[in-house]
């Protein structure tokens, strides 16, 4: 597909046409206030490192009502849960960073897996056109390239946008994305070489880091039984902030809430750092201490997801957990430990 260009003077009109008949979410605010929000097309912030939270909540809200029932025996179907449906509306998100788009694509294969489709996720995911914004100058916390991604990665996106001198370049990734671009004031322009040049520069600036292939090559049980996990987990507080910010953490709890008239069933984000997450009714817990829980999180990201998703790692290198962790647990250091032969990983 050919690339397109929007001149700087036409940006306001471009965002206006994206919003035509759709909700338009764009990066608003700066620093740790930066988030994807609906706002006027003239207020789009194009100079942010990344949004404070990943965009997962646009598809998988932190708390979401799934179904409801009433208990009035004079009305039809008392005590029978009725689907509250998915209220998804046509939406365009502009400004998803490639790491986060990759995260959405990974989560999409969980919510729409080989056996079941989550209708609440699917409705939002499929009604949303995702426009990424490439990272010309990655932040110090970024390591997407080390995890197999790229600051100019396209996975999970419909369109990849990138800044060029005097405007905004657009590279359609899907037919749906190209269709949308054609409805705007963007004009065709050959920018293929420009993207390549920018991408090479951005990856060089980030540094690729160590090759994590040893993790792919090692047997799952070898990684699991490695003695380093006790030391790796030692500082962890099991606070769960890593799972809260992670773009690929998708675990949830289902809870019922009752009122006098009936009740609702909802789902809420959950965390594998919690003891309650896995405890059985009998009191037995397959992951009884933080060592097992910390191991679960890193094994899930770096071994289990790649095994299930054609080698794609469950960490996208966004760096949020590295920045947010109160005790400075760094997934890059854990990954390096996992790469080493058992004798050396204990250090």
């Amino acid at each position: 597909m050919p690339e397109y260009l929007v001149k700087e003077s036409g940006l306001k009109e471009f965002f206006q046409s994206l919003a035509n008949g759709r909700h338009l979410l764009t990066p608003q605010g700066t620093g740790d206030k930066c988030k994807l929000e609906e706002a006027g097309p003239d207020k789009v912030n194009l100079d942010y490192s990344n949004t404070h939270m990943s965009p997962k909540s646009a598809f998988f809200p932190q708390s979401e009502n799934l179904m409801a029932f009433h208990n009035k025996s004079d009305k039809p179907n008392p005590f029978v849960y009725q689907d509250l449906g998915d209220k998804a509306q046509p939406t365009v998100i502009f400004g998803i960073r490639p790491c986060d788009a990759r995260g959405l694509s990974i989560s999409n294969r969980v919510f729409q897996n080989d056996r079941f489709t989550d209708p609440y996720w699917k409705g939002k995911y499929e009604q949303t056109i995702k426009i990424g914004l490439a990272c010309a100058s990655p932040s110090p916390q970024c390591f997407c390239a080390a995890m197999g991604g790229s600051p100019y990665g396209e996975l999970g996106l419909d369109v990849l946008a990138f800044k060029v001198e005097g405007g905004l370049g657009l590279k359609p990734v899907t037919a749906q994305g190209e269709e949308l671009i054609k409805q705007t004031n963007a004009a065709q322009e050959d920018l293929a070489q420009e993207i390549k040049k920018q991408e090479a520069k951005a990856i060089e600036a980030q540094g690729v880091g160590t090759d994590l292939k040893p993790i792919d090559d090692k047997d799952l049980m070898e990684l699991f039984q490695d003695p380093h996990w006790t030391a790796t987990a030692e500082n962890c507080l099991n606070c769960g902030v890593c799972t809260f910010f992670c773009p690929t953490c998708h675990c949830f709890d289902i809870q019922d809430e009752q009122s006098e008239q009936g009740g609702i069933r909802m789902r809420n984000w959950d965390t594998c750092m919690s003891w309650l997450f896995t405890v059985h009714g009998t009191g037995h817990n397959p992951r009884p201490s933080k060592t097992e829980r910390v191991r679960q999180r890193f094994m899930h990201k770096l071994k289990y997801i790649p095994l299930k998703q054609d080698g794609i790692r469950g960490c996208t290198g966004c760096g949020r957990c590295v920045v947010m962790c109160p005790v400075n647990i760094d997934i890059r250091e854990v990954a390096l430990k996992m790469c080493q032969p058992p004798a050396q990983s204990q250090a």
Partner: protein
Amino acid sequence: MNNPYLPYPVRIAEIRVETEDKNLRTFKFEFLNPGDEEKFAYLPGQFAELSVPGQGEIPIGIASSPTEKGFVLFTVNRVGQVSSYMHNMKAGDIMGIRGPLGHPYPLEGLKGKNLVIIAGGFAVTTLRSTITWLLEPSNRPNYGQITFIYGARTPGLLLYKEEWMAWEKRDDINVYVTIDREVPNWNYRVGFVPAVTKEVCPPPENTAALICGPPIMIKFTQPVLEDAGYKPDNIIMSLENRMKCGLGICGRCNVGPEYVCKDGPVFTLAQLNRLPKEY
């Protein structure tokens, strides 16, 4: 679109107290809406989420067999919020069931083989389903010798007495029921399941074992079977873990990369030997 979170509404048709401690009750459900029973097409070994409005859901193995029409059976141990609430519900009450979930026992692939079915305590539920299915006249000729070993602590803790007593009278299944310690008027075996298995289990040639029971029983029965020459591919087990969605999405029941709900709960010992013991 089909919503796999939405339970089928059912009416409790009957509640049977199964054990002398009254902690286990079997619930017989009938579907409220015509057509839902057909949509709930299941096979032995699968489970469902029992869904009580306002209380929550619990994953429970299906105890009835698909050859039994017009109802589904679940035996529920009183443990937590939902199961305790269910123990106070009455025939006629409305609730929901969601499923079927998980994979069944690989009965199709076991055609032509002898089967030894080993159950301990109330984990016998999906094996009740399996045996009922196997003894159906259209299925029985497809399998060789069937041996059923079932143990509980006391006679009063054995489930499905009517069923296993009827099976005992048949000549196409060998039934060995055992309790831990001798009690008066007990006419069956005494001893732990591993010891009985050692004594009566058929030779491993062309034979598969299905095991369901408490961890301690599995721990001591597994070596008995392996010593008898059973290959890990032919030892089939069913796992339990805490679950919520049952669809491989909510993330808590994984054993390594496999979700017990979506990829299990049935695994061969050969599969489990390659996975972390997080269950």
